[in-house]
């Protein structure tokens, strides 16, 4: 029992460390929920003018697509930022857990980039809804 205790304590510390690294290195964020069905043959609700503000309703299909392109390039930038930091986090995590504890300070959970992505996704959803309402031609490559 005495021999097992240091091992147990060591394992407990390691587990705690892994949890801390996991917390700092950032959790996966879920894909946003799917919108309501507005356009299938069985749709229970159809979109109305009242669902959009006046500035949005005046946008043409090509303007909507231009807005979406801007949002998509912003999204790519933020995703790249998260991906870059994730590699850095993993390296810092390994080093912190195995060799040098202060290496954990080099981790970054990309909270700002994730918040920006959340806003971009909200804006994209609104534009997708507008595309549906305006019956803009489908673009399966998007």
């Amino acid at each position, binding site marked *: 029992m005495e021999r097992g205790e240091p091992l147990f304590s060591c394992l407990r510390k390691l587990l705690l460390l892994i949890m801390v690294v996991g917390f700092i*290195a950032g959790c996966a964020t879920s*894909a*946003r929920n799917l919108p309501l069905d507005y356009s299938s*043959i069985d749709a229970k609700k159809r979109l109305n003018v009242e669902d959009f503000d006046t500035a949005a309703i005046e946008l043409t299909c090509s303007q909507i697509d231009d807005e979406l392109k801007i949002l998509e390039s912003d999204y790519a930038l933020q995703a790249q930022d998260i*991906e870059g930091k994730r590699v850095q986090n993993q390296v810092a995590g390994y080093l912190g857990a195995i060799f040098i504890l202060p290496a954990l300070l080099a981790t970054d959970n990309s909270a700002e980039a994730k918040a920006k*992505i959340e806003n971009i996704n909200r804006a994209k959803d609104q534009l997708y809804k507008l*595309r*549906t309402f305006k019956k803009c031609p489908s673009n*399966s490559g998007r």
Partner: protein
Amino acid sequence: MRRIMLLIGGLLMVSACATWSTSSVQGVGDSGTPVASKAEQKSPQDIVITETDITDRKYKVLGDIAVTVNKTTIFHSDPTKEQVNEELRKEAAKLGADAVIFARYGTVGIALTSWGSLDGKGRAIVFLP
């Protein structure tokens, strides 16, 4: 014995599947989750995936699909959007869908069961004549 265990562990780590995935389908109709017969099932390669709606063809919704791709060990590379699309296609094919609309993705990060997890959602639809 210990060396053998280590060797087996090492081999598994290097040779095992890089990712594993989970999925679920939620039916939107009153009949619950639809399941296509073998004849109705499509090939995953034929399924169109789009992040928007399809406005120029009439369609029926078959179900909402949610998939998660996880990397097997900390040493494997992170799951990608393409892998999520592949899983969405597989699930849609089982339902007999022609397309997945409103495809959307989470961001890669640590999940309860994996060091790298990425999820995706989409709505499986079938075009009407």
